[in-house]
């Protein structure tokens, strides 16, 4: 909302208050602003008279002028085609700051120029307000302009504007009158009355008919104005509209905008002769068509409200009028509409069609008393500035509530919620400044809130009013006195994050929304993907089912920037739809690629680095010896020979493996762990186990086995044969042989809690292990 100071001063005199102070004071009561200051930003301007003007000898368009500015006569070189002796002009003096830059004395083709003669455009007036003559030549001021004075004042452009960013509850501030009440409350000043008295003529025509056939309109006023004379608005109306950001068109259109700015109530004027004598307000039919005044054919739906004649829609209520009934240059008679439409409906329709000053006001809600006021004001202005004959008749449909609100509240309730100690007198004073009346009874204050404050309906609203005007920042912070209690939180996720960081991984944070075509990657599961109804872009269309596509996108991003050494993790949510129900679950994803260690001690990431991360984490969580890998259910994006499902307690809790060479040429390793499943599993208590007092015996053994026999199978056999005395099995050496075989060497540790083991006890066990493994796995013992 752009507040014009001159417009405001019609209703509340603030001429003694600096514009910046005014804006800051409004901010401190809750009304923020984006900018404030002069409407025209240019400085250093003065009215001058061109006393001589000759052509520049070295130019076909420059003129050498002498310009009298009162205190002196300046030499100015001017290129405008319309500059000539005798006219009064706007001069920017040496040092003047214009939107195009600072004016400096200088020589133009050998002749001194001590300033600039300006066009309106050069002053920085917004482009939409410029007429052709404002652009193509310098501005010619009238004969009555006084040399040496301020040209902006002469032109009526000496306004100041505050551009407010209002909260959505304060629809009442989308009007000059509303602003006047609000600012009046700050400075304790009275708001001037609005002028509404106008003559009417006896209306001989048939009474205009309004029938409302929707529950989305509770107030509709219609009045006829005859014999309007369409012309330019008076200058003050044009200038106030411009300061408010609205382009002047002609007096009739301008008056409807002017009244909307003053009262907050949007109006609509119809060409009465083209409209006919009846209006029906109804819900639009599904697929009903209407050509709006921007000459676009709109396809409407049942949610929209239309203004219609007997046959078809003639306007989209509250949003935009129809082309057929638009007021044009030759319009003679008009119908004035002042109405209230359902704010939700207007919001939905305007979102589809056009957000406008009018729809914005309907959306925020309107005071029905203002609807009447706006009608009267429009009649007053049409009569005065468009020579209109105003009908004595008015057609009214009214089911609105126009009563003021009465709220009872106690001083105790106010101070109790705020934590303040404001006196009753001060509270009453604050209410009075806001224009509320207060009846002081013993326990309660009975506060009457005028209907214009549609945002106030309960005690708490009144408490906020007191706090706002009293100064909410005067409240001193006090910690609440509450019962001592323990704060509870989920340690599981935090513990995992901490462990992953400790393992040297960098945490990432990626988007939940991913491209649709990635959503089924890195999984074999079949599921219903969840898509946005109205995505901003294809890149963020689908809720991810797995974090792995995100991890791969992070890899690509970094890889393109030549950062291929990545060991990263992320904890986030995955989403799926099961039987129509949305489910989300926490997941850990890890990606490792490139070098694990860099530089002198360079170490390339392989599968076992990632497996190590998995083991470290699961052991840390207490699942030692309870998990295994299973080469089943490998999605096609994974390398079939270097990937596995992670099984914990017989349940699949994740996936680990290398990215398939068809997906990436680089060696990338991925893991995903379903944390919600893991969190549900119990773990044993951490407690001390007795350490054997007796020395243990350590033996080494190596087997040469076929390549397709894996380490786990050998360990399983060793365990089976070793019995309870075998307490530790460590693979300590592994190498490949030529003939499709490999050698694996194990260190076995035997121990007993109750005795010192001797070779007599251990050797038979050791030999049994050797014979069992070699026979069962068809392998040989190395170094027999």
């Amino acid at each position: 909302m752009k507040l014009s100071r001159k417009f405001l001063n019609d209703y509340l005199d603030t001429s003694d208050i600096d514009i910046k102070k005014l804006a800051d004071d409004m901010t401190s009561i809750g009304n923020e602003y984006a900018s404030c200051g002069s409407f025209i930003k240019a400085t250093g301007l003065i009215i001058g008279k061109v006393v001589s003007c000759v052509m520049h000898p070295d130019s076909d368009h420059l003129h050498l002028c002498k310009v009298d500015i009162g205190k002196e006569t300046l030499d100015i070189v001017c290129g405008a085609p319309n500059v000539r002796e005798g006219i009064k002009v706007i001069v920017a003096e040496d040092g003047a700051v214009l939107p195009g830059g600072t004016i400096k004395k200088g020589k133009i083709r050998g002749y001194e120029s001590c300033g600039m003669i300006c066009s309106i455009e050069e002053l920085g007036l917004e482009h939409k307000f410029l007429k052709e003559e404002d652009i193509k030549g310098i501005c010619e001021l009238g004969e009555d302009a006084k040399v040496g004075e301020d040209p902006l004042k002469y032109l009526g452009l000496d306004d100041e504007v505050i551009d407010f960013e209002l909260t959505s509850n304060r629809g009442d501030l989308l009007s000059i009158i509303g602003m006047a009440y609000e600012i009046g409350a700050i400075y304790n000043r009275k708001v001037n009355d609005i002028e509404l008295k106008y003559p009417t003529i006896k209306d001989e025509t048939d009474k205009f008919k309004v029938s409302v056939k929707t529950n989305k309109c509770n107030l509709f006023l219609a009045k006829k104005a005859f014999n309007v004379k369409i012309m330019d608005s008076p200058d003050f109306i044009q200038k106030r509209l411009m300061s408010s950001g609205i382009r002047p068109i002609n007096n009739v259109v301008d008056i409807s905008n002017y009244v909307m700015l003053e009262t907050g109530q949007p109006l609509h004027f119809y060409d009465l002769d083209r409209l006919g004598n009846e209006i029906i307000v109804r819900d639009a039919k599904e697929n009903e068509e209407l050509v709006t005044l921007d000459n676009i054919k709109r396809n409407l739906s049942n949610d929209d409200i239309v203004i219609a004649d007997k046959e078809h829609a003639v306007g989209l209520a509250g949003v935009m009028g129809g082309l057929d009934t638009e007021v044009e240059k030759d319009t003679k008679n008009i119908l004035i509409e002042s109405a209230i439409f359902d704010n939700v409906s207007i919001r939905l329709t305007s979102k589809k069609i056009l957000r406008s000053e009018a729809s914005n006001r309907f959306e925020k809600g309107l005071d029905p008393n203002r609807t009447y006021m706006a009608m009267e004001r429009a009649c007053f202005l049409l009569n005065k500035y468009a020579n209109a004959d105003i009908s004595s008749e008015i057609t009214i449909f009214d089911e609105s509530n126009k009563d003021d609100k009465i709220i009872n509240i106690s001083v105790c309730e106010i101070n109790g919620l705020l934590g303040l100690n404001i006196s009753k007198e001060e509270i009453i004073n604050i209410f009075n400044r806001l224009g509320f009346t207060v009846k002081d009874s013993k326990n309660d204050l009975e506060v009457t809130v005028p209907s214009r404050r549609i945002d106030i309906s309960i005690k708490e609203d009144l408490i906020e009013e007191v706090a706002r005007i009293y100064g909410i920042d005067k409240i001193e912070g006090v910690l609440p006195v509450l019962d001592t209690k323990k704060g509870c939180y989920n340690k599981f996720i935090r513990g995992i994050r901490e462990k992953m960081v400790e393992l040297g991984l960098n945490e990432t944070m990626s988007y939940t929304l991913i491209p649709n075509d990635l959503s089924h990657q890195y999984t074999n599961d079949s599921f219903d993907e969840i898509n946005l109804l109205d995505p901003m872009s294809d890149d963020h269309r689908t809720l991810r089912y797995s974090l792995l596509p995100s991890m791969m996108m992070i890899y690509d991003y970094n890889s393109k920037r030549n950062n291929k050494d990545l060991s990263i993790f992320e904890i986030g949510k995955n989403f799926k739809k099961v039987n129509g129900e949305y489910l989300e679950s926490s997941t850990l994803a890890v990606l490792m690629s490139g070098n694990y260690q860099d530089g002198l001690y360079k170490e390339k990431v392989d599968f076992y680095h990632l497996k190590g991360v998995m083991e470290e984490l699961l052991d840390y969580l207490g699942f030692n010896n309870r998990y295994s890998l299973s080469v089943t259910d490998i999605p096609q994006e994974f390398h079939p020979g270097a990937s596995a499902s992670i099984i914990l307690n017989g349940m699949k809790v994740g996936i680990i493996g290398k990215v398939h060479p068809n997906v990436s040429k680089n060696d990338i390793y991925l893991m995903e762990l379903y944390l919600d499943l893991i969190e549900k599993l119990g773990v044993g208590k951490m407690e001390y186990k007795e350490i054997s007092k007796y020395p243990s015996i350590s033996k080494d053994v190596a087997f040469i086995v076929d390549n397709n026999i894996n380490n786990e199978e050998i360990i399983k056999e060793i365990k089976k044969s070793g019995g309870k005395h075998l307490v530790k099995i460590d693979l300590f050496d592994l190498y490949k042989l030529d003939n499709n075989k490999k050698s694996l060497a194990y260190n076995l540790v035997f121990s007993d809690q109750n005795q010192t083991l001797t070779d007599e006890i251990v050797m038979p066990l050791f030999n049994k292990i050797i014979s069992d493994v070699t026979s069962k796995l068809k392998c040989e013992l190395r170094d027999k």
Partner: protein
Amino acid sequence: MEKEYEKRNIEIIDELKKDLNSVKTSNDLVVVKAKYLGKDGIVTLLSKGMKDIEPEKRGVIGKIINDIRTNVTTLIEEKDNLIKQELLEKKLNDEKIDITLPGKKNRRGSMHPFNRIVEEIEDLFVSMGYDILSGPELETDEYCFQRLNIPLGHPVRDTQDSFYVDPLHLLRTQTSSVQARCMESNKEKGPIRMICPGKTYRRDDDATHSHQFGQFEGLVIDKNVTLANLKGTLEVMAKTLLGEKTNVRFRPSYFPFTEPSVEVDVSCFRCGGKGCSLCKNTGWIELLGAGMVHPNVLRSNGYDPDKYTGFAFGTGIDRLAMMKYNIPDIRLMYTNDIRFLKQFDRKELK
């Protein structure tokens, strides 16, 4: 006779010195040692000859032989020490390394700045007895809006333009949805003290807005909770997160779920309130929105507004992280450039 032995003494020592001069290694020394002190060594033989000396002279001669033995032994030991010393020096010299080569380290991980802030906030509020709660990111319109006094068509929905997946479900636009869930699930309808950090989503994308971002919401419900209590609590929070000198300022504002509502500014922690580019020369930075829980919100989640009051506050996590770590563009938080991530690898123990 004594003179003869004295002479012999000098001869032996001279010869030994000569021998030792040519000794290079411990092995050489063993040979020399055997020549003098071995079974048939020169000194050993002298001692053995004692039995042929007349008894009355044995004392004097014995002493001379002893002197010879002592001298010989001393000289050999000295040489032995010398050789060991040389060996040690050689070993030390051989083992000299370039101490400027890099150390062998474990990889150093890092926590994302978003979660660093989350954990800092969680630690602070847990210490004040708040519970840390979470809720679904894919929320119902009811919990995200309606139970928070934002009915369908409410204009505030404009500023929280949402991602719906069907007419009833959306990615939550605010963590306030957890407020409603928390009040509803509190069976006794007794006091509440909680915060809920998490991800939120709105249709927005530029240098200061991301369509995905983080918020945390705080909620206290109890008897006689006041706006002054809210300010006191936020002062503690601001001082902890942004520094002890931070001041807090209230400005009136509007949120549908609180009444009165306040916009909360903190004094600029970079310039201390003097005015700088961070605070756009105002000395203040907008930090969060807050207020007293609206009676409609209490009521629609089963609380009696005549018995309980409460305050709620909520702010952006990314914004806090960006302020704290001087991150200029929110997109840096989500592009996951490893050069960005690795910068957050320290503990801040102070």
